[in-house]
């Protein structure tokens, strides 16, 4: 185990250096855009996995993305409220929403499938709400952020700034993950996941710790949504709220491995890269085929790598080491 940790440590340092250097080596703004998206989605998927790795599988994170993306954008467009502060208002609203939803779910003891189904419905409610208030939100076909190009409006002439913001956020998310690992919160949540009643009779306040991680996850997800909106400058219920986005976040985390800290990052990288690759390499020549291949690849990965790429990899390595021992 020691050996793995050591390699892991150096590996992460190298990875970090590469990630910092990348935008200076690759100058294509398209590739930079893809890389920024990867980091942004990695951040969101990591935040999602905070909950999922303790058995709270939410299929409704779209609502937090949506709140994070829409509120600052709309406040800016309507009232010229600077996103520098607006983002935090969005995050606060998302956290408040999470508090209401989470408390209701946990109070009534919704677990497993029921929790997943309720959150799925919540995701759909988020998209429908955007559509129902189409006069203010732009409805089903989206909403564009007013461009000013001013730094005070969080708009940068060099789009790579967003790459680094996303990178810092991702590093932050990984750091928080590690902190959770070393804190009693992990003990509490692991115990709660396996047996709420056993945990409670050892003095763990079930609702408090579940709420804690839910609020954290929702807040960070909203932050990711806000950043996405600022970066892409265009939001729509299809791209940043609703069931589709919620599921795609799960996909990224699960394919990468939601129990390992870098799993969501690896998953996001592979899914975004794969999607781009199949579309560009065969997109226009045989319409629809690229998406079929993408879908089948996802299917195969889910079937054959149920623990995700990082999960299966670390399992394989530890088996190998055990055999040597």
């Amino acid at each position, binding site marked *: 185990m020691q050996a793995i940790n050591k390699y892991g440590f150096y*590996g992460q340092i190298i990875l970090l250096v590469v990630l910092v250097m990348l935008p200076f080596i690759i100058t*294509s703004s398209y590739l930079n855009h893809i890389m920024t998206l990867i980091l942004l989605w990695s951040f969101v998927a990591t935040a999602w996995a905070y909950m999922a790795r303790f058995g709270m599988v939410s299929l409704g994170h779209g609502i937090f993305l949506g709140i994070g993306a829409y509120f600052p954008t709309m406040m800016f467009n309507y009232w010229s409220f600077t996103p520098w502060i607006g983002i935090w208002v969005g995050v606060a609203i998302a956290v408040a929403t999470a508090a209401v939803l989470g408390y209701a779910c946990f109070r009534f003891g919704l677990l497993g499938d029921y929790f997943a189904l309720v959150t799925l419905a919540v995701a759909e409610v988020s998209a429908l709400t955007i559509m129902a208030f189409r006069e203010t939100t732009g409805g089903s076909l989206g909403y564009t952020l007013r461009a000013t190009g001013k730094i005070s409006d969080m708009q940068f002439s060099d789009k790579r700034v967003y790459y680094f913001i996303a990178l810092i956020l991702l590093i932050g998310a990984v750091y928080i993950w590690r902190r959770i690992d070393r804190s009693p919160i992990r003990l509490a949540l692991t115990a709660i996941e396996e047996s709420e009643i056993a945990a409670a009779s050892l003095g763990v306040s079930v609702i408090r710790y579940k709420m804690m991680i839910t609020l954290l996850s929702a807040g960070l997800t909203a932050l990711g949504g806000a950043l996405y909106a600022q970066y892409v400058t265009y939001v*729509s219920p299809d791209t940043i709220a609703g069931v589709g986005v919620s599921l795609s976040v799960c996909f990224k985390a699960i394919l990468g491995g939601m129990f390992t800290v*870098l799993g969501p990052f690896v998953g996001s990288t592979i899914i975004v890269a794969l999607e781009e*690759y199949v579309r560009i390499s065969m997109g226009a020549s045989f319409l629809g085929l690229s998406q079929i291949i993408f879908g089948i690849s996802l299917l195969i990965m889910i079937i054959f790598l149920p623990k995700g790429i990082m999960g299966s990899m670390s399992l394989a390595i530890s088996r190998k080491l055990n055999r040597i021992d």
Partner: protein
Amino acid sequence: MMKKCLVTVIALGLCVGSVFGTALAQDKEFKLGVLFSMTGAFAPAGGLAGYQGTMVAVDMINARGGIAGQYKVVPVIADAQSNPDTSIREGQRLMTVENVPVVLGVFSSAIAVPLAPMAEQYKKIFWVIIAISDKVVQDRHLNYTFRVQPTGSQWGQSTVTMFNENLEKFGIKSASEVRVAVIYEDGPYGSSVAAANKEKVKEFGMNLVMEEAYSHKTNDLSSLIFKLKSAKPDVILHTGYFPDVVLFFRQARELGLKTKAIAGHGAGHANMPKLAEAAGGELMNYCFNVDPAPAQLLDRSKLAPGNGDVVGEFLKRYEEKFKDNNPPTHATQGFGHTWILLNDVLPLALEKYGDLSPDSIRKAALDIEIPDGGTPCGYGVKFAPPEHALSGQNLRSYPVVAQSVGGKLSIAWPGALQTAQPVIPLPADSPYGIK
């Protein structure tokens, strides 16, 4: 563990990189970025047809020896997948990785709206082919976005104007007696058209009895129809994509909706033959639709010399290539607007400014002036300058109102192009006609 992961990441990066690396410029070739929603929800609504029309134009130009007889047009095709997120990525790839001077296309206004500022940022031409929402250009003062076809508000204005000119057919004298209902899908396209509808209705002093938006993905419009039934409109102005339009026609019939006239505004209504095929011909009978005149309907004798033949060749080639002798209007638009770019704007840029760089193309586009009838689309071309509120918009384009009677389309408005008098009110043989 980390190492392996790193290797995977780098390998994937290389994979992706290698795809983009292949783009190498060659002499005497002009790379044209073509971006349409060829899959996804917008594909059947017209994204695919627009692409097909564009490809016929490219073939024809190449058959004539290329742009100004010198540059072969090499289309770089990308699929927007009806998803704004994907289209932004593809637009960026075309403009930066493929480094094309011009990206043309997009079906949906929702995709055109975020793409236009990107063209501005990379200083590449964005040649809008189908998306009609005013919001694409309005008040944005864009330098690099050009749009040949009319704007959504022109769509919205033309039907109301036509009805206003035909008040006597409703059996009433004053415009204030006409009861109008406006229903529309809630995207930029629908809301653009509907806003113009309402503006004109107000201007003429008509009686707006109802307006309601809905999502084009809806699977039930019965509540809307109930509301329409109690509003009892004389005229229903409808803007929608395809499935919602079919749903509307079918449900309205079954729920016994009666009115005096139904008018659609492009997109879903544009493709009357397909609508008839999918929903039943009698439902579409006597329905109005606004669009640029479809090629097959144009009076070729009224076009400038040569253009009539171009239209004929387009129709022939389209039928050969796509086995369809009645191209939808989106194909016509795709063809005509691409043709104007390749046949008029680019040669001028080459002649006057010496190259095909985006800036030369831009200058040429602003210079160009084609009178009415000078293009295969029928209308002329003159782009609004950057200081204009609609900068980049063709100020000489206009749509026509056509009416489908017994499966045949005729132009009902404007008067100058009229091929038949509009049939108002709906006769008794229409399922919506008042008996």
